[in-house]
């Protein structure tokens, strides 16, 4: 009996210690990550470097975005992709193909398709319009360093049963509240994708990743580097940018 009491007391003490550790609530961290990503409008010029089975394919595009809800991408190269435009409004993606002069509307599970042959899916692209905090339950699992930066290691479990990435392991920079590395898992526990942030820029008190690498683990020897070559925040967006007519414009 005495032993049981002692044991319980020890357990209690242990619990006290963990509780007293200097860890912000997981929910707070998620909220800060979401906050950091908020902007009004942005203009981006970027390069997508797809490496697959020792081949390197480079694509360039420009994009306008408004908040996290709307974006418009236009591909400039290579030749077969030139003129392909993607309009994303919330969770609906429309793609204009100049070769067919037709628009493809994508939604639902088809958003998991590879975007323009890269390791990114259309879903990965539209994902930022959703708030992490609303869709995932989070827990701080510990602290680790990534490239010399202190990070919280967080585990996110989906609140929704039908999430593509059911669990995520995220290394969050504990000073800048930015995910530096992310492992995305299916509900079965299979590792689907690994994302790493390779380069971060500071623009007006905002930390913004300018080089991100994503590896689709279901593709053999494949990764895609997304490199932002130019980013302007809060620029005026030309009228009618986020419209179907703009997609069809020659």
């Amino acid at each position: 009996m005495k032993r049981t009491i002692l044991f319980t007391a020890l357990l209690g003490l242990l619990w006290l210690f963990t509780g007293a550790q200097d860890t912000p609530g997981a929910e707070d961290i998620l909220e800060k990550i979401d906050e950091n990503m908020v902007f009004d409008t942005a203009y981006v010029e970027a390069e997508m470097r797809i490496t697959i089975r020792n081949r390197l394919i480079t694509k360039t595009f420009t994009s306008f975005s408004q908040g996290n809800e709307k974006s418009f991408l236009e591909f400039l190269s290579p030749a077969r992709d030139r003129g392909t435009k993607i309009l994303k409004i919330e969770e609906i993606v429309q793609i204009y193909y100049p070769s067919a002069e037709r628009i493809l509307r994508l939604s639902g599970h088809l958003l998991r398709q590879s975007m323009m042959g890269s390791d990114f899916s259309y879903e990965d692209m539209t994902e930022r319009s959703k708030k992490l905090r609303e869709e995932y339950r989070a827990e701080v699992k510990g602290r680790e360093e990534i490239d010399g930066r202190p990070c919280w290691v967080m585990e996110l479990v989906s609140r929704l049963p039908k999430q593509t990435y059911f669990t995520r392991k995220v290394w969050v920079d504990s000073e800048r509240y930015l995910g530096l590395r992310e492992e995305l898992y299916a509900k079965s526990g299979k590792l689907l994708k690994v994302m790493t942030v390779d380069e971060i820029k500071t623009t007006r008190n905002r930390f913004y990743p300018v080089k991100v690498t994503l590896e689709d683990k279901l593709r053999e020897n494949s990764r895609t580097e997304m490199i932002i070559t130019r980013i302007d925040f809060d620029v005026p967006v030309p009228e009618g940018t986020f419209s179907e007519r703009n997609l069809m414009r020659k």
Partner: protein
Amino acid sequence: MIKNIFKLSWRNIWRNKRRTVITFLAVAVGVMTLIFMQSYINGIMNSATDAMVKLDIGHIKLVNPEYLRLKRIMPKEYMVPDIDRVTAAVNRVKGVDMVDPRIRFNVLLSHGNDNEIGIAVGMDPPLVDDNIQLSHQVTEGRYLERDGRELIIGRKLAEKLNVAVDDELLLITTDINYSSYALAFKIVGIFETGYSYMDKYLLFLPLPQAQTMLDCGNAAHEVLLFIDDPERAVAVAGEIRTALAGHPQAGDIEVIPWQQDELLGELVPMMQDIWGAIMKIIMLIVGLVILNTMLMTVMERFHEIGVMKALGFKNLEVFVMIMVEAAYIGVIGALVGGALGGPLSAWLEKTGIDVTKMLGEGLMEKFDIPIPMLAKILYPDFSLAILIHAIVFGVIVALIAVLYPAIKSLRMSPVEAFRSELKV
């Protein structure tokens, strides 16, 4: 004495004609059933193998080794380059009848707001029609022309997309350089093979259109070769390797005779196991019928055997007599069965059996195996080995059947035998 026993046995079996005829029939029908069933099952396996060979494998297949390795993910970029040159080289090899290049890629299909994922097969329409009579499976609209921005699509896939003949369908794919490319096609026909994988996922389009979509020039994923004598595939494959040695990208071309095909190598033993088990069950049933009839025939004669023993017949003589009787019935029955079953199976091998009529159209749908498409008429495969096997089986079972009563009769005293008389 032994000679007399043979005579006696022969007379014995004709003393009760009705009984003998029934026993006879059991053996004959049993043997006939075995011959027919084994021929039929061989026919099913041949037809399934043949279907797979024509549909997907060819007598000899040319394929990029990397494509083969990654086949599961359908890697578009690993192709057999420069088909014209390959065709020219291959056609110089004796025995090659047909060169059938195919392209296969996964594709996103879009019509209005309906999107589905499918598998597009680019091919030479008249060639493939020659081979698998694809045009006969087109239930609505027409079959493909040699070139043109048109396609035919499986019935179930068409239903999922809500499309009909003459509708436009948008095809989107990533080409061999990972560019995203789309073209609008006209649906000219809808096919229904009864094989649900094809009806649910496949669409066929002319090879040049598939090459445009993939931006691959005159290349193909697989080149199926059909030769005059399929049994010579391994030898011909060797000659083709030599003929292709001069090709600048010979390293990108692997030559595989159908006997070495991986899929077939997995499926054929599986099929043999399944049908082998079914055949064993049939043999068991036939064996039991023969066994039962023979056993009854001898058992009901114990009384008679008792009389013979009382008259001074030796044990061994009675034993031999029973066995010889069984041998007469077994051999004659089995020969009659063989004489009926053999020609019947051989005749059906020529004319074929209309399976759809036998099973009804609806039933075919339930068996999701790639047989129905080419096997609406099934040709049993009869051989002398099957005939001999069945006859030997019939005789041996007949002999085994009487072994028990024959041994029993050895130990019986005449008095016992009198008492055990069965009144039938």
